């Protein structure tokens, strides 16, 4: 499992495998990194599937623990879906930087001469494709099993796209901060969960409104605003945290 070499900042002209349509600078480095992360994940497929299975299992717990009447399930479906998605996203964060720290890839990124924040933005996007997107695609099945009406599925998916995006960015900060610690996983939850509570509030609210047949626009717009904010600021914090972990 070797890292795809990143181009040096100035002399990347004679790189062995030029990516189409992208130059030789930051864009190409970011694309290579994205491609590498996705390819590595396909080789260790269980890393992608396990959080999804976890998501479905957690959602299954609630009808078993409460009651399978469709009226109750419909009322609590937004909460179940969002809490399960949040926990599953936390579980997936474990794999974001850990292996790259162990085999030295992170150091290579930090030394590559490219702005680390942008590279980590690309890495976070790859992580979202591998952890957020599967949740978005699985959620409709779970939602229908929880007696949510079919019309609400679209809003649920949109809210999950936005929400899991925010969780990936926030979680990247937490994952980078806990890299240098011993008991990282519980600590990671302690750090990320309080920060993720607004996402839970707005995401569950948008889904709830859609299930009742109301207009969910406001909550979705607030989620979008939070996604833009976290996408623009979180990579900076993540790169600062990665540099501290590499010291």
């Amino acid at each position, binding site marked *: 499992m070797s890292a795809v070499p990143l181009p040096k900042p100035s002399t990347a002209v004679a790189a062995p495998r030029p990516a189409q349509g992208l130059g030789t600078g930051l864009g190409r480095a970011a694309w290579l990194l994205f491609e590498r992360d996705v390819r590595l994940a396909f080789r260790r497929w269980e890393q992608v599937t396990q959080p999804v299975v976890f998501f479905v299992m957690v959602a299954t717990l609630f009808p078993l623990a409460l009651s399978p009447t469709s009226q109750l399930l419909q009322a609590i479906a937004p909460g179940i879906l969002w809490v399960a998605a949040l926990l599953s996203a936390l579980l997936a964060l474990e794999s974001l930087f850990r292996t790259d720290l162990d085999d030295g890839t992170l150091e290579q990124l930090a030394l590559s001469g490219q702005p680390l924040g942008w590279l980590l933005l690309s890495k976070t996007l790859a992580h979202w494709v591998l952890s957020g997107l599967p949740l978005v695609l699985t959620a409709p099945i779970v939602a229908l099993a929880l007696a949510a009406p079919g019309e609400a599925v679209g809003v649920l998916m949109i809210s999950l796209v936005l929400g899991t995006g925010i969780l990936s960015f926030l979680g990247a*900060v937490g994952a980078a*901060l*806990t890299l*240098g*610690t*011993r*008991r*990282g996983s519980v*600590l990671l939850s*302690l*750090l990320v*969960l*309080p*920060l993720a*509570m*607004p996402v839970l*509030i*707005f995401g569950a*609210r948008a889904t709830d409104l859609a299930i009742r047949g109301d207009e969910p626009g406001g909550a979705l717009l*607030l989620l979008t605003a*939070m996604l833009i*904010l976290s996408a623009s*600021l*979180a990579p900076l*914090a993540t790169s*600062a*945290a990665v540099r*501290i*972990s590499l*010291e």
Partner: protein
Amino acid sequence: MATWTWFHKLASPPHFYRIAGTLTPWLAIPAALLIVGGVYGGLVRAPADYQQGDAFRIVYVHAPSAWLSLMCYTYMAIAAAVGLIWRIKLAHAVAAATAPIGASFAFVCLATGSLWGKPMWGTWWEWDARLTSQLILLFLYLGYMALRNAFDDLQRADRASAVLAIVGVVNVPIIHFSVYWWNSLHQGRTVLKEGGPGMPPEMLIPLLMCFFGFTLMYGALLCVRVRGEVLIRERNAAWLKQLGAPRAA
């Protein structure tokens, strides 16, 4: 440049250690007087509230704690940012010393809020917007302290927790307003409405005394705690040995 020398001196551990030592009684004694005066005024002199009776008197502890728990978080984040940007070790010590104090204030605020809730709302815990956002603030403090404790190396603990404090302080307003938004959708207005009828002076003056007293108490506690942090961080430094290092281990 000369005007800034005092400031740079302040950032050096030996000077700060000395200054904080002399400052402590000057903060602690007025704090004690103000708190005793404010609590006496609040519990004994102030008239009972026409709506809440005597139960409102817990506000003299509750409100200053709520204010300080928020102020401590802001102050902690500012100190952490100063430490991260200008690499001032003392600023990290201030941030580290503030966190447990702020967490205690948040806890006191929650505990008194819960006690207050029993006669007012009939339950020990009501999912009121202000109480809930205080609870999340307490979680943020706990996360910060947990991260700080997870590192063996003090410098890495300082810098990692500084990043967390800055991320947290950006998020605090978002959390606050989202919790209010959530609360306004799920529940009618609570007993304690904002912008309610103004307080008569015999209620307000003890409250202000408590506010100032608690703030000064925070200053005194901070001085003591930062001195402790300096002792831990500089335990091998020469100036401490010259000082005849009191119990620096």
